């Protein structure tokens, strides 16, 4: 198809009217007859302790209580609430060493909020009253909040499976010397004329999705377990629950609910095991388990914080010669996702610039902080904060323009992407840099702000990033899709990958309608329950449009092929000479000649043999297209962000005045939805670099589990935003599309940090860069003009 009528338009979101009127049903909105209410009793006073005594009897006798269940009342099996173990081959799994270390109810508390027991009652109030009657005595254990503390000799071991509390390091033999890349880094670094190096800290950021986690679970009379959940990965949750509770998968049904924001927090499971354990304790009764915001805050995984060291060498002409890096991240008390971010932080690093020699080491250590797992960007903002600041430090030393340096040395078509051996099929980063620079007035402002006076200083900064579209080849990228044509030539599509609010189902429907040649409103797309929908790995790694869209397109192409073949018989014209538009099939060379698609679909379903002649009326059979699709690539998107900031050198406050996000997304299937992803990403990226971090006291208790104490950018804090969609079609993605879900968050991080550097001549190695840190930096180093830095003089 040379021209698209539906792809590329701002088709209205499929779920938007329900959401605008409040009819959309999120998990907490579900009400079922005979429903009981669950409450998980958690350890709030300790982040590390053993349960010495647990007495459930007073709670069990409390009014309105149906059952109380503790560790001995549930399966002793453990689980891994994330899903990476299901996304790799068995041999890869063995090499990575993923483990199942989470109990449903624990006797060894490993973080504040760990689950102790569960109460099932006739009302939430009754459950809460009973929770107060649980008697539990703890033996406090030493609290380890950093890798340094938890790996110290004599530290309490989190699990015998991971000695030294080292949850993960890049494994041999895939990563020789436990490193991504390698070669003679030290030797290469000796050839450098200029070396920049620093140790950074990256923060523990929370997704803060607006819908707190909630579930309903029920066991029916046939022993079938049904779980209503807002997980991003319904099919993998089905398998996880089947494994945990020793049920065949056909006896576990997942009903995906509307998702009130994900950003990674719903990647895999959170409290599905507890909700289902409660339902199994009271067969026949649905049990609803809702989490309070302050509870959601501590029990759902956050971004991986930790120490990130990096060293980069350049020749005097700007040529980069080597990059050496090490990210030591602080896990929470359990293993989930320990392997993922430790790897990807280095993968994004490897995918960015043409370093002839690069070595990256990634390690994850257990600590008593809250759980860490998937969060939009998955290691990428951490790397961006570090890499992009060091590149700008290098540029300052070299006297190089940061935009020009990046244009010269970023990777592009034909270079290895984040996975060695998988090369970039498309790259429009130069366009992103050029258009972004023009939009913010780069050249003029860089010159103007290089010399300033007064207490208020301005600066502009740039940062770039690469991400991915699905996680092939490291992880399984498989999506099944079925499209069936109804007798009236409308289409119904079954596709299990969740829409978390990005608008992915709308864009997929556009792809389907475009491919079929049907109007947008004559196509329906359903996620379906796990017993109806085919396999899908889930909404992760920004894959839904690139992988899912390709699957939808292929299934629709198959249905279209069948439709045209039947039309070909009727029209006596070869199928390849036919086209479909608005449900009318016509001869391309003679558009007046054609047939309505409905005539064919109706004859296929309502198929009769003429009683007079015995002749069949058309080709029998309902047309269905089906594909079990495996992504052939991961066509990474690229982005360049430009920030203008104002630094108050007396208060340390940083105000972001403007943020330009220029993104190479291949093709925007629904431009308004793409903009929405980039704009929302900016809000989270600004939080990462300037304001957001979960704080703990010395005992490992969260100090800011509320929206008042945890600082996100509000509507008045947000800068002026310019979003630039660079559309340079990718040769592999559906209609040329690459991903956009995560990447908008990433490069605003480095751009803001670099703008601060430009404004006051100081770099900050700890994120978030709060006013306190800015003031401390100014006191220690003094404000200096960017123009006074060596290379710029």
């Amino acid at each position, binding site marked *: 198809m040379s021209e698209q009528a539906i792809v590329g338009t701002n088709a209205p979101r499929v779920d938007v*009217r329900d*959401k605008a009127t409040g009819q959309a049903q999120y998990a907490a909105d579900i009400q079922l007859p005979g429903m009981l209410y669950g409450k998980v009793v958690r350890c709030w006073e300790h982040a590390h302790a053993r349960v010495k005594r647990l007495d459930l009897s007073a709670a069990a006798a409390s009014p309105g209580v149906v059952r109380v269940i503790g560790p001995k009342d549930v399966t002793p099996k453990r689980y891994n609430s994330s899903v990476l173990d299901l996304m790799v081959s068995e041999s890869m799994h063995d090499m990575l060493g993923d483990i199942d270390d989470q109990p449903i109810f624990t006797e060894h508390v490993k973080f504040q909020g760990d689950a102790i027991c569960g109460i099932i009652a006739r009302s939430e109030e009754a459950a809460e009253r009973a929770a107060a009657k649980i008697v539990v005595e703890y033996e406090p254990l030493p609290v380890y909040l950093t890798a340094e503390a938890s790996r110290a000799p004599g530290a309490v071991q989190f699990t015998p499976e991971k000695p030294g509390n080292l949850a993960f390091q890049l494994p041999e033999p895939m990563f020789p010397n436990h490193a991504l890349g390698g070669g003679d880094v030290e030797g290469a670094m000796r050839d450098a004329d200029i070396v920049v190096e620093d140790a950074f800290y990256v923060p523990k950021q929370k997704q803060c999705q607006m819908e707190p986690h909630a579930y309903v679970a029920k066991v029916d009379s046939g022993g079938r377990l049904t779980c209503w959940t807002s997980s991003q990965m319904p099919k993998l949750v089905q398998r996880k629950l089947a494994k945990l509770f020793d049920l065949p998968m056909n006896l576990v049904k997942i009903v995906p609910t509307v998702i009130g924001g*994900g950003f990674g927090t719903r990647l895999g499971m959170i409290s599905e095991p507890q909700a289902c354990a409660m339902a199994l304790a009271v067969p026949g009764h649905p049990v609803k388990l809702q989490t309070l915001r302050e509870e959601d805050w501590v029990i759902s995984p956050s971004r991986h914080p930790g120490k990130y060291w990096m060293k980069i060498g350049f020749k005097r002409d700007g040529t980069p010669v080597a990059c050496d890096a090490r990210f030591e991240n602080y896990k929470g008390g359990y293993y989930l996702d320990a392997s993922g971010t430790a790897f990807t932080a280095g993968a994004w690093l490897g995918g960015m610039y043409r370093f002839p020699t690069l070595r990256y080491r990634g390690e994850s250590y257990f600590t008593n902080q809250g759980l860490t797992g998937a969060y939009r960007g998955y290691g990428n903002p951490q790397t961006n904060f570090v890499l992009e600041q060091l590149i700008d430090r290098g540029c300052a030393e070299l006297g190089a323009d940061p935009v020009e340096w990046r244009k010269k040395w970023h990777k592009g078509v034909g270079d290895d992407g984040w996975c060695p051996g998988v090369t970039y099929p498309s790259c429009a980063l130069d366009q992103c840099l050029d258009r972004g620079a023009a939009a913010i007035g780069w050249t003029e402002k860089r010159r103007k702000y290089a010399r300033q006076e007064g207490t208020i200083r301005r600066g502009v900064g740039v940062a770039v990033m690469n991400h991915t579209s699905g996680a092939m080849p490291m992880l399984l990228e498989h999506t099944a899709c079925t499209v069936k044509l109804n007798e009236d030539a409308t289409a119904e599509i079954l596709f299990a990958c969740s829409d978390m609010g990005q608008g992915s189902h709308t864009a997929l429907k556009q792809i389907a309608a475009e491919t079929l040649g049907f109007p947008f409103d004559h196509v329906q797309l359903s996620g379906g329950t796990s017993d109806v929908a085919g396999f899908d790995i889930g909404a992760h790694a920004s894959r839904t449009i690139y992988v899912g869209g390709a699957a939808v397109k292929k299934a629709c192409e198959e249905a279209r092929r069948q439709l045209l073949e039947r039309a070909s018989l009727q029209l006596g014209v070869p199928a390849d000479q036919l086209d479909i538009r608005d449900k009318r099939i016509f001869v391309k060379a003679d558009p007046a000649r054609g047939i309505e698609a409905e005539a064919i679909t109706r004859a296929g379903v309502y198929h009769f043999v003429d009683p007079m002649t015995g002749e069949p009326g058309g080709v029998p059979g309902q047309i269905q297209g089906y594909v079990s699709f495996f992504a052939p690539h991961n066509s990474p998107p690229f982005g360049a962000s430009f920030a203008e900031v104002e630094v108050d050198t007396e208060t340390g406050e940083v105000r972001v005045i403007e943020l330009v996000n220029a993104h190479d997304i291949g093709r925007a299937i629904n431009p308004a939805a793409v903009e929405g992803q980039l*704009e929302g990403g900016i*809000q989270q990226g600004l939080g990462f670099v300037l304001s957001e971090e979960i704080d703990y006291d010395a005992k490992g208790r969260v100090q800011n589990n*509320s929206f*008042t104490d945890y600082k996100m950018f509000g509507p008045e804090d947000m800068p002026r935003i310019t979003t630039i969609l660079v559309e340079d079609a990718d040769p592999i993605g559906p209609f040329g599309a690459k991903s956009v879900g995560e990447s908008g968050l990433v490069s605003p991080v480095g751009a803001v940090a670099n703008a601060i550097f430009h404004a006051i001549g100081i770099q900050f190695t700890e994120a978030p860069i709060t006013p306190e840190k800015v003031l401390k930096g100014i006191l220690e180093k003094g404000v200096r003009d960017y123009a006074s830095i060596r290379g710029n003089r």
Partner: protein
Amino acid sequence: MKDRNITLHINGEAHSLTVTVNRTLLDVLRDELGMTETKYGCGTGECGACTVLVEGKAVNSCLTLAATMDGKRITTVAGLSDFGRLDHIQQAFVDEAAIQCGYCTPGMVMKTASLLAKNPDPSEAEIRHALEGNICRCTGYEKIVKAVKKAAQTMPGRAAAVEPCKEAVQ
């Protein structure tokens, strides 16, 4: 805990019920009356997802005791639309692609309704200020602000010759 008999006039319909005095309006709407269009986001008045109108003014229903609402007129987001026909605010949110996950939307729409009732022609700065108590984690507020501007411009009864929306003071 004591009970109290109250009558709530919700979206034009009277509901007489007995509530325990510590129950919040949010709990009563959602759990007692099954009106789940109003959302729980934090329970502490920080996120605004539970915003409803009481006598035309926006309140956080999670901080409001139902027992104090006897005889009051309450509007939820479902009260703005008539059998799926969207009102101008809801339509503006749809048209401007201001809805992503949708969880903050009922509160955002109700806060907009209360803002426009007081100030039918708000500047961008006034819109942003009014929305400070409503958190959205999806949109970066960009399209929500545009939707509120559009809602102001499309308000029924608004004179044909309206001034264009005032731009924010930079």
